């Protein structure tokens, strides 16, 4: 059930091919698995391990370091309210309280219907637009407690479904490297001569 579907499997192979060492594709593939299922299962990790040639424990070892990866199901919408300095100075605490009250869960929890998971997040690189939040990593700026309540009712009503894909989907545009334009992976052990555009004499003089 949670193995890559055919389309994602071929995409996974394409992604692996961009790196000189397959293990470099580990984080991109974890993202792909999370995009497909909303979270990352044991089986997904086993498959990724096979694909990149490491053990499942190594996949888990890397994956658990990163906060965006979830190893059990979470809400369809992940509501991340920033609580770092600039947002805290501008009233982030009130936003978090409003969300907790409205959702009936504390930060870290998921609503019983599985729709929304609430997190207290760290700086989102939007400090001038404080206080701010993200829903599935889509921003809302200069948010008020009323704005949070409104956002939650919109999420419940499903009216933001077009704008905000389910948890796991980041960019909706993927990079595509056309085969006839690609240079190739540049192997650290094999491609050891100077690149074609570097004049050898100039390089030696450096």
């Amino acid at each position, binding site marked *: 059930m949670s193995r890559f579907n055919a389309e994602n499997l071929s995409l996974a192979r394409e992604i692996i091919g*961009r*790196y*000189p*060492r397959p*293990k*470099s594709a580990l*984080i*991109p593939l974890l*993202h792909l698995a999370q995009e497909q299922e909303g979270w990352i299962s044991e089986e997904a990790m086993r498959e990724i391990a096979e694909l*990149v040639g490491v053990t499942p424990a190594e996949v888990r*070892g*890397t994956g658990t*370091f*990163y*906060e*965006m*990866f979830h190893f059990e199901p979470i809400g369809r919408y992940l509501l991340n309210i920033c609580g770092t*300095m*600039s947002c*805290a*100075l*501008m009233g982030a605490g009130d936003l978090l309280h409003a969300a907790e009250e409205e959702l009936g869960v504390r930060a870290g929890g998921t609503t019983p219907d599985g729709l929304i998971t609430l997190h207290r997040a*760290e*700086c*989102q*690189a*939007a*400090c*001038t*637009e*404080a206080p701010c939040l*993200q829903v599935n*990593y*889509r*921003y809302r700026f200069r948010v008020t407690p009323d704005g949070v309540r409104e956002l939650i009712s919109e999420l419940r009503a499903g009216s933001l479904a077009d704008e905000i894909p389910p948890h796991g989907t*980041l*960019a*909706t*545009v993927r*990079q*595509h*490297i*056309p085969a*006839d*334009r690609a*240079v190739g*992976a*540049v192997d*650290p052990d094999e*491609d*050891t*001569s*100077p*690149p*074609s*555009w*570097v004049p050898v004499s*100039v390089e*030696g003089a*450096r």
Partner: protein
Amino acid sequence: MTAETYPWAPGFVAGDRPRIVTSRFGHEDSHTLERYLATGGYEGLRAALSKSPSEVHDQVRGSTLLGRGGAGFPAGVKWGLTPEGVFPRYLVVNGDESEPGTYKDRLLMERDPHQLIEGCLIACYAAGLSRCFLYIRGEMALAQERVASALNEAYAAGYIGRDILGSGFGVDIVLHWGAGAYVVGEETALIESLEGNRGMPRLKPPFFPAAIGLYGKPTIVNNVETLSNLPFIAANGAEAYTAIGTETSPGTRMVAVSGHVRRPGVYEIVNGTTTFRDLLYGEEFCGGIRDGNDLKAFVPGGGSAPWFLPDQLDLPFEGRQVGAAGSMLGSGAIMVMDSTTDIPAAALTLTRFYAHESCGKCVPCREGGTWLMRVLERVVAGEGTTDDLDLLLEVGQSICPGDMPHASSEALGLDATPFPYKMTTICFVGPSAYVPVHSALTLFRSEFESRVAPSRARTRIPVVAAGGGQ
């Protein structure tokens, strides 16, 4: 005086100032190849390709372009640190922007991704780098999307990949994104992450990435804003760049000002001459403190920087002077606190950040950061004692032994201690947990004292170890 904003560039404020990296922000479609080409796009690359790689390298050296990721190291010098004759060499673009207060790289990626791509190409050409990995922070879905679109457009139009513009120069740019970990912004952790590992910094010295980096090969790590300056330099020459700003800090700089000002925003300022007073009070910048309040303190260079007082307002945004005054410019982020600010609570928001983001590799950071956070939490909650204030400084000393940099204060009769500090950790996350505690306690000790009980009136057991012990 103008202060123009655009709905499609949230937070950005334009003014009557030179614009190097934000020149296209006024166009709603600034992220498209069409607009980019219509506004001088890829002209810098063409100019670079008409010169030899070493001529382009010399041009960048001559521009004294300083790194914008935090350390301020000259880009041209860094490119020259790769060991002679060792190939392949890689370029890793640091788009992991997550230092508290910092907001500029995301804007540059969302609003002008082609400018960044062009900068990457120029860097690869000049420094002989044969593959580029563009690492964007995981939480930035729109930036990932914009950069992906721009890369696809640029590949299709022949600007990236094999034999670029028929020059024989060819390089791929691979988009990669992270998954949520502040410390991955540190360059060696970024490399670990790109190799598929936990993002824990490597010990350096002895080996810096320029010598031994990605896959053990020479690797240049440059920040998004740093690279975004290259098209201008390549197209207009080093002199056009150094004509702006000062000798030690040429060009412009992106600065985010957040917190209690009337107009928080991201400003492209003239480097080296613009003062903090200009930025906080100037009508074309932030226009003063909100609600007509007084300024209490500000963080001049991102969450890791020691705090400044109104005493330091007349300093220019220039690295050496700010360093001598006890802080650093870091990532171009100013956080402003007005007279209503609860200082211990404000310090806690930063200490909690760094404690939370510790990768756990060094004991003083992993344990010390957590201690600082817990003791400070207790103080902020009104449950601390005077002993706790000493404990905070004592724990801090185990992370940063010796003198800590701090600002001068006329009112407190305090002289400045210049930057930097000594540290017992591999990277700056550990010290950064202590910096806000130290600044707040040094400059606002009375606010802590009024909150704590005398030492014998302790109501709680001090710290419960994470392992569940007493």
